[in-house]
């Protein structure tokens, strides 16, 4: 089977039927809201400067989903038409969409992130299905609709980075590149921490916020090029996920981490905006790229080559983000490393050295 071809045995919806599938999901959401008005929650957000309205039917699902975006919440009606994200919990509302989820697949199909990603030929509709959910994004209408089996059975990723795959497409359409990187900020600007899993992004980001820096993300953040060629970084989630041994190093944080009964990728979650509300920012100008290297005798800063920085983004963002970023992303990242300086932060054993080191880089 070639990429983009339908899988054998999978019911494929002709492209003309994609709008009907979207309508069916919208109808099911409407019915869920009408049947369970007390379980509906509506919150307004701003994602990378764009208004977003998140409506969820299902108390447990709402509580766990809104929490990851809480720092981007805004009061009052948005000035422009928002991006609608509508979600419902079938275990609470008794809907019947998930049993037919396979039939919701669109013409072109890929396997991605333990699920199935499908798209209509014109790219307008993209759906993502995995065992406990189906989500459909209408890129033209700027709306996303999602049905989950149960808000009580979510993975660490579902709680800490809800809808990251579909949101990466929405951000891309707005000129914002999803980066696999941490982002912390000093008063002089933001420091991007690119790196694949296990490079120390979460540890460094959390250490930074406990030592007075501001937090924008530990794993996925948005990058946007603005007028004049400068770059701006955007927060997406206010969460940090750590392994238990790493969390044990943060004595003051440990009691506040959420140790839920996650069934997949079981990691405690730290909601930074709840612990450090004054140290959360949603957008910052990018001042430098900081490459992390673990296992050193002491923490020290050395200049990095621009090629080192681009290679770090290649190893993380360009290599691992789904959907895979393309040529445009490489051009954008090359422009970023040409514009801002890069440093190595060689991490020693003492967490308390991380914040001052990052502050020193930002002040350079």
């Amino acid at each position, binding site marked *: 089977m070639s990429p983009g071809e339908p899988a054998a045995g999978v019911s494929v919806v002709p492209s003309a039927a994609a709008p009907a599938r979207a309508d069916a999901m919208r109808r099911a959401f409407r019915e869920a809201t009408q049947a369970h008005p007390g379980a509906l929650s509506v919150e307004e957000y701003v994602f990378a400067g764009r208004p977003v309205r998140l409506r969820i039917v299902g108390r447990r699902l709402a509580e766990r989903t809104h929490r990851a975006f809480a720092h981007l919440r805004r009061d009052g009606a948005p000035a422009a038409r928002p991006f609608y994200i509508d979600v419902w919990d079938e275990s609470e509302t008794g809907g019947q969409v998930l049993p037919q989820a396979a039939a919701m697949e669109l013409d072109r199909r890929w396997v991605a992130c333990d699920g199935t990603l499908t798209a209509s030929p014109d790219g307008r509709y993209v759906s993502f299905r995995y065992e406990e959910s189906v989500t459909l994004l209408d890129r033209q209408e700027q709306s996303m609709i999602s049905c989950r089996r149960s808000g009580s059975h979510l993975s660490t990723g579902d709680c800490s980075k809800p809808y990251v795959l579909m949101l990466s*497409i929405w951000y891309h359409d707005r000129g914002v590149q999803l980066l696999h990187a941490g982002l912390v900020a000093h008063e002089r600007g933001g420091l991007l921490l690119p790196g694949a899993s296990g490079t120390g992004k979460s540890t460094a980001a959390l250490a930074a916020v406990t030592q007075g820096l501001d937090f924008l993300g530990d794993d996925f953040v948005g990058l946007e090029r603005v007028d004049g060629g400068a770059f701006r970084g955007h927060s997406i989630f206010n969460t940090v996920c750590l392994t238990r041994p790493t969390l044990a190093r943060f004595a003051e944080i440990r009691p506040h981490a959420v140790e839920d009964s996650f069934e997949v990728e079981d990691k405690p979650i730290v909601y930074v905006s709840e612990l450090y509300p004054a140290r959360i920012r949603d957008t910052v100008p990018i001042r430098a790229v900081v490459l992390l290297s673990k296992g050193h005798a002491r923490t020290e800063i050395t200049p990095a080559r621009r090629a080192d920085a681009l290679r770090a983004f290649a190893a993380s963002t360009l290599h691992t983000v789904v959907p895979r970023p393309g040529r445009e992303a490489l051009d954008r990242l090359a422009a970023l490393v040409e514009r801002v300086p890069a440093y190595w932060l060689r991490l020693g054993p003492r967490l308390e050295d991380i914040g001052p080191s990052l502050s020193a880089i930002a002040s350079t």
Partner: protein
Amino acid sequence: MDQLPGTLDVNRDDVAAKIIDGEAIIIRLSDGTYYSMDHVGASVWSLLEAHGDRAATGRTIAAWYRVPPERVQEDVDALVRELFAEGLVVAAPARAVSGGGPVTPSHVGPYASPRLNIHRDMGNLLALDPPTPGIDDLLLKTDTDEPR
């Protein structure tokens, strides 16, 4: 490939590359595999991108790094063989040097045989399913049919 073509081109449909600080960073877009080549390799890449003439590339590298042409040509051919095997270059008709002025060496220091460093996604290597989609596979066509 036993017989290497005399003229080559970067596989522009599936490859994005940047040369920065004398190092080439190359992405194979169809599966996200990325590659790096330092100094001499990056210079070879620039020449293949500009004119694609394999023999001329060997001669130019020999002159830039002051190394016997026979040795350099062996190294260039070995590298080209790897680039072919990875789908990063394709056979192409002879062409004039592409625009942008004369090609200059990415970095001239001591000569070392060029090496292609390959960084594969283990998930893709092990998967029986097709590789994950790229954002370019999901181009959104607007009313004016301009992909975005």
